């Protein structure tokens, strides 16, 4: 079993379902969300999650204010020591602003919020965040964001990211072809999720926590979240306790 921390900023709005899914569907240990203004060591946790939402109303720019929250210094220390940090949607944006992941988010190419079900291809399965996925697996996941167009400063930066294998998820069609039509927001290289050079911080725009029950239309979020559990338990030398995927209904 892995122990998760979920951070709550003012304006975070996905912390309740993130906690619920980890507890009830993945049967993991999760504390009540940690308040942004209360600094605390995070070493007791196996993984720290920055969930989706509109931290501080996304005023100024998504994540721009949240990165200054007291608890972010703890998150940075935790990541520097190799702890697993997952940022989902707004959490991803906060990680970018905090410099824990490379690049930046621009407004969607349509200049509109986009809520939709998209397909993402898993690019690597040797990461703690994708180890339970199949190579090249295509996941059907929901997105819901207005600033999700992933960008870097120039082509050489993108080239560097690609060479380093930083891209873990890419928007694709249902068959796994990475096409412009499958790109919902104008992200460079159809990037939906990236990891840092050390591989212990991962940010993605789609919401895996909304796709863990067949009742809700998809269970494709499960392999991503199970990857973390699998990694933690394997590292610890425990037998993997992750159960086979059994849709809730």
């Amino acid at each position, binding site marked *: 079993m892995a122990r998760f921390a979920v951070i709550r900023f003012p*304006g975070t*709005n996905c912390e309740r379902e993130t906690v619920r899914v980890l507890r009830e569907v993945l049967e993991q240990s999760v504390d009540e969300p940690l308040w942004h203004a209360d600094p605390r060591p995070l070493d007791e946790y196996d993984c720290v999650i920055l969930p989706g939402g*509109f931290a501080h109303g*996304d005023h100024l720019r998504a994540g721009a204010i949240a990165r200054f929250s007291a608890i972010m210094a703890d998150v940075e220390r935790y990541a520097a020591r190799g702890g697993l940090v997952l940022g989902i949607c707004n959490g991803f944006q906060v990680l970018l602003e905090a410099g824990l992941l490379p690049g930046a988010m621009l407004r969607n190419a349509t200049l509109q919020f986009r*809520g939709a079900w998209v397909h993402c291809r898993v690019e690597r399965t040797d990461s703690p965040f994708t180890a339970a996925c199949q190579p090249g697996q295509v996941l059907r996941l929901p997105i819901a964001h207005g600033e999700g167009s992933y960008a870097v400063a120039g082509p050489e930066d993108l080239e560097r990211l690609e060479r380093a294998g930083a891209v873990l998820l890419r928007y694709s069609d249902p068959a796994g072809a990475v096409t412009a039509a499958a790109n919902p927001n104008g992200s460079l290289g159809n990037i939906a999720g990236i990891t840092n050079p050390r591989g212990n911080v991962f940010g993605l725009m789609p919401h895996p926590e909304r796709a863990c029950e067949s009742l*809700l239309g998809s269970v494709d979020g499960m392999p991503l979240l199970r990857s973390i559990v699998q990694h933690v338990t394997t590292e610890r030398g425990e037998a993997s306790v992750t159960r086979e995927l059994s849709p809730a209904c």
Partner: protein
Amino acid sequence: MLSATVAAPVSGRWRYPVAQIRQFGLLEPEYAQAVERLGREPNLVELGILGAMWSEHCGYKHSRRLLKLLPTTGPRVLQGPGENAGAVSIGDGLAVALKMESHNHPSAVEPVQGAATGVGGILRDIFTMGARPVAILDSLRFGDPSDHRTPHLVDGVIAGIAFYGNCIGVPTVGGEISFDPSYTGNPLVNAMCVGVLPADRLTRAAASGPGNPLILVGADTGRDGIQGAAFASNDDPRASHRGVIQVGNPFLEKLLLEACLELIERGGVLAMQDLGAAGLTSSSVEMAARGGLGVEIDVQQVPRRETGMNAFEVMLSESQERMLVLVERGQEAGLMDHFAHWGLHAAVIGSITADGTIRIRDGAETVAELPIPLLADDVPAYALRPERPATVMDCTGLDVPSGLDLSHALLSLLGSPNLCSRAYAFVQYDSTVQANTAFGPGEGAAALIRVEGTHKGLAISTDCNPRYMRLDPRRGAQQAVAEAARNVACVGAEPIAVTDCLNFGNPEKPEVAWQLSEAVHGLAEACRALDVPIVSGNVSLYNETAGLGAIAPTPAVGLVGLIEPIEDRVGIGFHEGDAVVLLGQPVDTLSTGELRAVVLGDERGPFPRLDLAAERRLGDLLRSLAQARRVRSAQDVSDGGLAIAVAECALASNVGCRLKSEVLRADGGPVAALFSEDQGRAVVGCLVSEAPAVLAAAVAAGVPARVIGHAGGTRLVAPGLLDVPLAAARAAHESGFARLLGHTGTRV
């Protein structure tokens, strides 16, 4: 009782010119009545309070008597009309709160903020009750798509809903968008919210305990929206709202939501009331009135966002994201700490009194003093003077056209304003936040939300068809209830509660009074027939524009159904190979509807057949089929008729359909069979092996049923009548909305 007729102004009789009295929303006889009751003339602050509380918006002057006709009770009802929202039990100690409200006039002037604050207001109505909002639906009406204002209004309203709902983290899961020329000067933005709460946490807004402190929390008070309630009861939106538009801050409301729910969970809240129309005035007066008490407020204690505001402005500001909380004396300090944790400004602004008076102080000086009963109970009530207009259409005996190209007609309809895909709007909304959305937009005949921690589901639908309303407001209102009930029945749910939003023109006009009266009778009749109570609602009158007249009467119905277990739910998408069964009475002629309006260019036609007893039998049948898991898809037949229902089922899952032409040729002929909008019908899909059982169940339930075809392939076909590739149908359906707004394909 007063007469609505305006008496000739008697100059010099009052301390205010009659024009000024009117400006405050009062007719001169109303003012005279107030003076008589008060025994003196009100000062300016008092006049402002009086005008707001006696406005149609707050006081329901023209609709109060009629609304008493509505059935509001039932075994599930925990809270009927009169509070911030209605509430019904869903068993196991849980309750659902629901409410729909209009924000029409503000949206006509500033569509983004008008719609955004409409969503913000309805959310507050729900969490004030102690319920966590779990779904938003929007019933939107716009004018002629070719009018130059329409695209601006449509895009603005959608953007406003997205701006507010997405940020606060409540999924927008459904609703409707319809176009009708009557809304050209006066769009309708009706927002509905549904919340879930433990029944024992139901919080009301009745004052108790004289001496208890009144705490105002949330946004600081500014000069925005001053006198909005009085102005909303005028009949030219563009003339009325300039400069009084409120601006929404969903981030602040999110903090307020979490802080209030946490507070209610902790206990100790005696009453909670959000500040909406008429701001601090109506919220404090209503709270005091419900408790039969009084209230005293010192405006100097109200946190302001700008300097120099006087008592009048503070009392009538409609600044958003504010809440009034009443607790026991001595609890103030703890409450302040709680709100400070959430970064919210809170202040004790006054207290409850025993003397049945609202007393406003500006520091040491008393600036207003009015009896609560004058404001809450003595609101003038007008008897409507309904007259059936001579212009009501007689549409009996119209021909059913022959020689139509049915494939072309289907494609035209699929791309037409009222039937094309609403994905243009829905992709701008977050419909999956909270991870409880079982059916988002277009997935089921109604939206479906799982109740967290249970196997219960809430099916939700909003409905009203302005064309039917224009033809026959009584049967039109019945149809709105019937269609909403049918939609939730298709999902497999039982209707448990209705909220409504009555949008009409100026009720002082006899024909509008007739529409209003007929519609309320129709709503009452349908709710009784389908055994579902109306637990909350809102009335929006004076929806007229100079030169353009009144809107089509629009009693928007929001209905919530309960399904348990939710795993029995049925979506609309066809499954390959399924038998397609039509439930309901065969048609005999082509009713009014989209085919007549869009393809034939003349909407006149008979009112669609509507039989409330048959609707009830159909609903029971659909639920029993879902529970027995005999059907794999279900969609109601409504706007556009059978052809559109079948096309929607096919497009939802990308599975075509082959219809039996001989069945369509019988009865009223293929045109009527495919495009009539007769009510009380649904299309279900089931395994071929299950079809006999489905037909037998229908016979047993007293519902006519026939296999009309089979699902499969990549076309919509009725041999010899119709043949449309699914890809062409999809192209027409999905490009329609952007095209009618004159946008290029790059927007979506």
